[in-house]
Every structure is written in C-alpha cells, then in structure tokens.
C-alpha cells in the first residue's frame, strides 16, 4: 500500500500540514502521511530575486521518495519561482511523483489585507489538490469551479473549489488505483 507523503520544506506550520491531510485523502482516495523529515530550501535560493527555484526543489525532493511513496507533496512557506515567470504558486512533475506548493502568496497579508486564516487554509488545500492533479497527468480544466482550473492570481483560486470536477475526478481516481495499489 502506497502513501501520499507530505514533506515540510523550510519553516512551515505543522497545523497547515495536518489540515491538508484529510482534504487530499478525500480527493485522491489514498492515505496521507506527514513525513518527519524536513527539507531545507536554501540551495534553491536566488539572492537577486529573493525567491526559491521550484524546479530545483522538485529535483531535490526525488531523494525523499521511498518504496511507500505514491506521491510526494512538498509544502513550503517560501516564495517560489521558475526563471521565466515572476512567481509560481506551486510546481509539479506532470505524471510524475513530486509536486511542491507554496503558501507564501496565499496569505491575505501579502496583499495588504487583514489576515484570514480560514481563507488561507482553503487556498493552500486548493493549490495542493491542483499540483497533485498535475502528478496524475491532469492539465488545466475549463470548469472554473474545478480545483484544476488555471489560477494565476488568488482571486481565481478563491473562485474555485478544493475538489475536482467529475471529468477530472474520473481521470484521477483510476490513476490513484493503479499506482497506489490501494483504493482509500
């Protein structure tokens, strides 16, 4: 039986990881476990941009994969980027085992607004489901309510739900069944 593993990257709130578990378990029908190890992201830091290169983090995460891993989701509070874009909310290996999601730009405070912990948690869950969706080969979805809908700004994240639409779910479920060997 394989597991969906959550890997804390840098200083990330344990409570957030605990909130994520039931949400991703429900969507992907697979048991989820928070790893006790932690990845220090400093190797991926870009001094000029003051951001962390998500693709490099994904590469480093490979070494955390075990025989038990169905998927490995890195969760971080640092700001992520890929060289051509100003930022990313997360990155995933399309049809691969690893994905990373950043909580940095999901906080209301970043936009000069009062903190909203509930909204923040919802955004992290939606983006975690979204990146994990890419690992089961899902591309972006036209249904704006689906977690796989493209969202390049928090307003778009707020519009969608944390669950997959029927079409995306029908792709995700068999993928989970085959590769995890377990139907949760």
């Amino acid at each position: 039986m394989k597991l969906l593993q959550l890997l804390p990257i840098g200083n990330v709130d344990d409570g957030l990881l605990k909130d994520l578990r039931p949400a991703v378990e429900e969507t992907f029908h697979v048991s989820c476990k928070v790893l006790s190890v932690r990845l220090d992201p400093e190797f991926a830091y870009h001094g000029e941009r003051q951001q962390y290169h998500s693709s490099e983090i994904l590469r480093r995460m490979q070494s955390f994969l075990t025989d038990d891993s169905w998927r490995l989701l890195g969760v971080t509070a640092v700001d992520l980027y890929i060289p051509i874009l100003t930022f990313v909310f997360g990155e995933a290996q399309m049809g691969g085992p690893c994905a990373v999601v950043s909580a940095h730009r999901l906080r209301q405070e970043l936009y000069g607004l009062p903190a909203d912990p509930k909204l923040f948690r919802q955004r992290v869950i939606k983006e975690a489901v979204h990146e994990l969706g890419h690992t089961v080969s899902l591309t972006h979805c036209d249904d704006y309510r689906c977690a796989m809908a493209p969202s390049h700004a928090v307003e778009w994240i707020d519009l969608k739900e944390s669950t997959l639409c029927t079409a995306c779910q029908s792709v995700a479920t068999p993928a989970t069944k085959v590769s995890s060997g377990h139907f949760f």
Partner: protein
Amino acid sequence: MSTLGKLLIVDDELSVRDSLGKWFREEGYDVTTLENAGDALTQLAAQRWDVALVDIKMHGTDGIELQRRMHEIDPELLVIIMTGYASVETAVAALKNGAYDYVTKPLDPDDIAHLVKNALAHKRTAQENVLLRETVAEVARPEDMVGQSGPMRKVFEAVETVGPTDATVLITGESGTGKELVARAIHQASSRRFHPLVAIHCGALTETLLESELFGHEKGAFTGAQFRKKGKFEIAEGGTIFLDEIGDISLRTQTDLLRVLQEREITRVGGNQTIKVDFRCIAATNKDLEKLIEEGKFRPDLFYRLNVFRIELPPLRERRDDIPPLVNHFVQKFSMAMNKRITRVAPAAMNQLQEQPWLGNVRELENAVERAMVVGQEPELKEQDFIFKSQGAANGSSKTLEDMERAYILRVVEECGGNQSHAAELLDIDRVTLYHKLKKYGWTRTPVETR
C-alpha cells in the same frame, strides 16, 4: 485530447524552454520548444503553429529578424516577443515588424496566460471573419452578368484578366448594357473586394454638388454645409470608386479628378488639409470620349489616365444569342421576387423577343420581362404578355404626337357619327378647338354622311 492551441517557444536558454514549455503544457497547450532561429524556420516550413513566443536576444538571428522571416513563411502566425528588459525601441521595432505583442521577462503568469489566450481568440476571430467574408462574397457574387455569345465571353475574359490587378478600367457601351455590373464584377475579382465599392453617377449631379460628393466638404464650406462630410473617395478607402457617366462632368471637375488620380490625395471643399486616399478607379461612359476630346469637352490627360484598360460592352442587338438566357434569368429572378410560378417563355414569344431592336439594351429587356411577369399567368409567359414594337417602329419610323392626336380625334368624331358637339365633349375640349383641329387634319363630313 484537444488542446487549447499550438504554441512554439523559441529561446536559446534551456531553462526558459523547459520551464515555459512545461508551464504551458499544464495549461493545456500543445507546445514545441526550439533553441534557435534556424530550427524554427526549418520547422515552420513543414508545420503551423497558432502563436510563437520568441526571445528577442538569441545567438545568430535575433527575435525581431526571426519574427520577420517567420511571417514570410506564415503571415498568420502570431508572434509574441520576449525581451529581457522593456524599452521603447524594442517595443517599436517588434510591433513595427508585425509582432502581436511583446512581454518582459520574467513573465507575470496571469499576464502571459491572458495574452496567449487573447492572441488565440484574436486569431480565431480573424479566421472566422475571413471565412464569413468569403461566404458572403460567394453568395453576393454578381449573377446578372449573363451571356454565352462571343462578345460577352471576351468581356468575361477581360474582367478575369484585369480584376485581380489594380489597373484603372474604362468601361464603354450604350446605356443599359450593364456597365455597372461589369464594374462590380471587377471589384469582386480584386483583392479590394472586402472594402467598399462606391458608385457615383456623375451625370446626375450639378458641378458643385458633384465636387462635394466626390471630395467631401468641411463644415460651413457653403450654405447648407452644417456638418463635415466625407467624400466618396474617402468612403471608398481601400476599395473601388466607380465613376459612372464620366463623359458628363465639367472641365473643372475633370481637372480636380485628374489631380486625385495622379496624387492619390484629396482636399475637402472648404478645407485646406490634404487627405491621402487609397482606391481603385473604374469609370464608365456611353459617350464617345475621343470625340469629346476633339470638341474640347474632355481633357485628353484625364482620358489617358482612365483608359488604362478598356472594356467595350456590346449592345444587345449585336449579341442576340444571349437574349434567351437573359430572358430566362430575368424570369427566374422576378418569379422569386413576385412569388409567381412562371418558369418559361413560350417559343413564339421568345422568337419575337429575339427580333426586337432593344435600343435600351439589357435594361429595356429586363423591364419588358418584369412587365410581362406582372400580367402573365403561370406557368409560362406568352406573346400577349409582352408589348412588341411593330416592324415599322423597329425601323425607327414611330408616329409623332401629332399623328397620334389626328388618329384619335378622327376616331372619336367618327364614333360620334360626325357629331362635333358630342365628340368635343368626349375629348374634353371646346367645340371651336375641335373645329380648328378637324380643319387642320383635313376632315370632311362626307364619309360620315354616307353612312
């Protein structure tokens, strides 16, 4: 699985190709990444993309040059230039060369997602627009040009030859031969067909009105000019202007017209600003312009400007073989318009139609068929539905008004048994007037009295 569109990314940095390629694939695009201009041009010769994202700074051929060469291969490709830092020069160079837009690296995810999405929507709308225009052009093709005779085949060939060129055309021929139809066919066969065809009947307007119609006028240019008005040359921008009855314009307007044809710019009446205009000119006349030149009524230099390619339309009497197909065409046209199920013309009537002089040419024939369609009964038009001219009339010896008056008065007087008072009453003229007319026409009572 269908994709949102086909994207090509050309950048010599591997990290950009990989990261942007992956990012757009996740978005749902079919992405190809290439590392240099040479590869891009080679591949573009073999396949098509909807949008290309091209780095401005690459080894060898830069993005601006690549974009120019890509458009030589595929003019419909939308190119977005990616630049390391924004500068006015870069933007101007890119956009001047026909780039769809340019973006600064690193790209804002929301901006680039919208830009590519909008570019694809723009392209699809443009493609749809072309398709619709072609469909409309197909439906709206001038169909009234009917004829299989030798002279008309030559006309069709001439239209086909000159249509796609931008040459000025002079169409000559008698009234009613279809000069405007030929002008429309030339316009339809040209690359200007998606722009307006503006027809102006020069003979119908006074000199000052024609000037204002052709060149437009500024507010207050003359009494009644309450608003600025665009002239026909401005309205025809990009399209064709058809100057009908060109032989009827004054020498002064001829001078102005010559200047427009030479300079391709106009000045509105009452204005002093010159306006560049882009048009093709087709002129038509039923007059003998060479003769008008000899008489000093037409400028030879304007004639030479207009007479670049000449199409002479034959009168209908010189192509009588075309009368049956023309009649059938008009029958079909009016049966649809009048909702009458008349589908043919009796052979005797058709023979008569072919014998008529048709001095008014196709227009007269069309009117004759229209009239017959009004009075005719389904399913065919018969001889009695047409008004045929007698052979004498056909020879041009038609009766004068005086002849007709004489015949009518004598007939009424005879019907009244020679009673002039009664006849005057029926004719609604006084008895003295009738008396004078009878005297003039040499009427005597004798034949009546012998009855």
